[in-house]
């Protein structure tokens, strides 16, 4: 080690003791191996600046060095073990072991968090069992009205599953304690069943509302009258006003899907005029003589 101690500390030849001390402290904070436990390279440099500081901080030694009587090799330091070498050796046997740095990792009950909380508390290992995930198809009306069904787990007994009214497609039902068993007395995980709702022939779910098209005859459309319409909770009678056109929407308030917090959505029925299945001679004759029908232009709003 024959380098220049002034250069090592980054100070001028005529630096005051105060400047030398301050330069050393700055470097030592950056280079002390125990303050940089992950950086192996700091050790050699810290050794150098420590030797330089030892030489320059001593007025007498500094004077002799300046006069060329000694060089830095006189200040060479004995081989030293840093605390980090012991601290990193083993967590278990180290009396200074401190796990406060992750004591809060154990707040949650899952398998990895409990690893940390066990270390932080020094207690025994306990973990909640894993959740198991399943999915299941349910008919549209069963999802709307609710139902009780059984789910057969691939590797377990059949479980009763209560599908609540208003269950949505993609909703997950939780069966407490029906997942993997816990470890070390921890509670069992849950079975999580994702519900897939099958599409209905004509009902369409729109949040808590239900929409569908109701076919009506030409006669019902023109003259109005009572018609019977299905709903998920059973058929209802509707009164159509005279001249009810295709696309007219009737709302059945509170007849839709049960809402989470109580109450229910609505049903929106969209009328759709349907001609008779077979051509009708009388109807054709009437239309031929119905001159007003020739004046109507329902495509006017479309331009051209």
């Amino acid at each position: 080690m024959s380098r220049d101690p002034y250069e090592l500390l980054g100070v001028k030849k005529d630096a005051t003791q105060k400047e030398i001390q301050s330069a050393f402290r700055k470097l030592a904070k950056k280079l002390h191996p125990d303050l940089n436990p992950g950086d192996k390279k700091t050790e050699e440099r810290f050794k150098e600046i420590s030797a330089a500081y030892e030489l320059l901080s001593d007025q007498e030694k500094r004077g002799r060095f300046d006069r060329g009587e000694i060089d830095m090799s006189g200040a060479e330091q004995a081989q030293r073990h840093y605390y980090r070498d012991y601290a990193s050796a083993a967590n278990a046997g180290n009396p200074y072991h401190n796990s406060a740095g992750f004591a809060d990792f154990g707040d949650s009950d899952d398998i990895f968090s409990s690893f940390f909380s066990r270390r932080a508390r020094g207690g025994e290992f306990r973990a909640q069992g894993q959740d198991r995930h399943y999915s299941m198809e349910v008919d549209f009306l069963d999802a709307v009205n609710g139902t009780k069904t059984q789910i057969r787990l691939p590797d377990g007994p059949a479980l009763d599953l209560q599908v609540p009214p208003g269950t949505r497609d993609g909703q997950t039902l939780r069966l407490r304690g029906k997942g993997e068993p816990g470890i070390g007395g921890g509670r069992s995980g849950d079975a999580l069943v994702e519900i897939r709702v099958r599409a209905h022939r004509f009902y369409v779910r729109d949040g808590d509302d239900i929409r569908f098209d109701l076919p009506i005859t030409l006669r019902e459309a023109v003259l109005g009258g009572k018609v019977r319409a299905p709903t998920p909770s059973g058929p209802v009678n509707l009164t159509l006003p005279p001249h009810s056109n295709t696309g007219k929407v009737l709302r059945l308030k509170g007849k839709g899907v049960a809402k989470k917090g109580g109450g229910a959505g609505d049903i929106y029925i969209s009328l759709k005029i349907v001609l008779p299945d077979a051509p009708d001679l009388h109807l054709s004759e009437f239309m031929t003589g119905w001159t007003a029908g020739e004046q109507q232009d329902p495509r006017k709003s479309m331009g051209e």
Partner: protein
Amino acid sequence: MDDLEFRRFLKIDVRALDVWVEQGWLLPQTRDGARDFRDTDVARAQLILDLTRNMGVNDAGVDLIMDLIDQIHGLRGTLREMLAAMEEQDEEVKRRLRGKLDELCGIHGL
């Protein structure tokens, strides 16, 4: 080493050593009713000396620094054990862990 050897080696007086032990910076073992210091205590004491003699840290600062250093070593030890445990997993699990870690690095811009 015993009390006297320890103090001679470090060139400290008994009052200073009593403070260090009292503060919990050093946790010597006890043998035949006397303090007994291990190599790890020597290395730790040298760090305390570096801090107090050369780096201008006062007692309150040493207390803080030693506590943080102990926490860092606790974390480093646990991290090392986790890495070792991850290393022992099948290739598929390792690949997925690596992918997730890369993803997290991407999020944090590392």
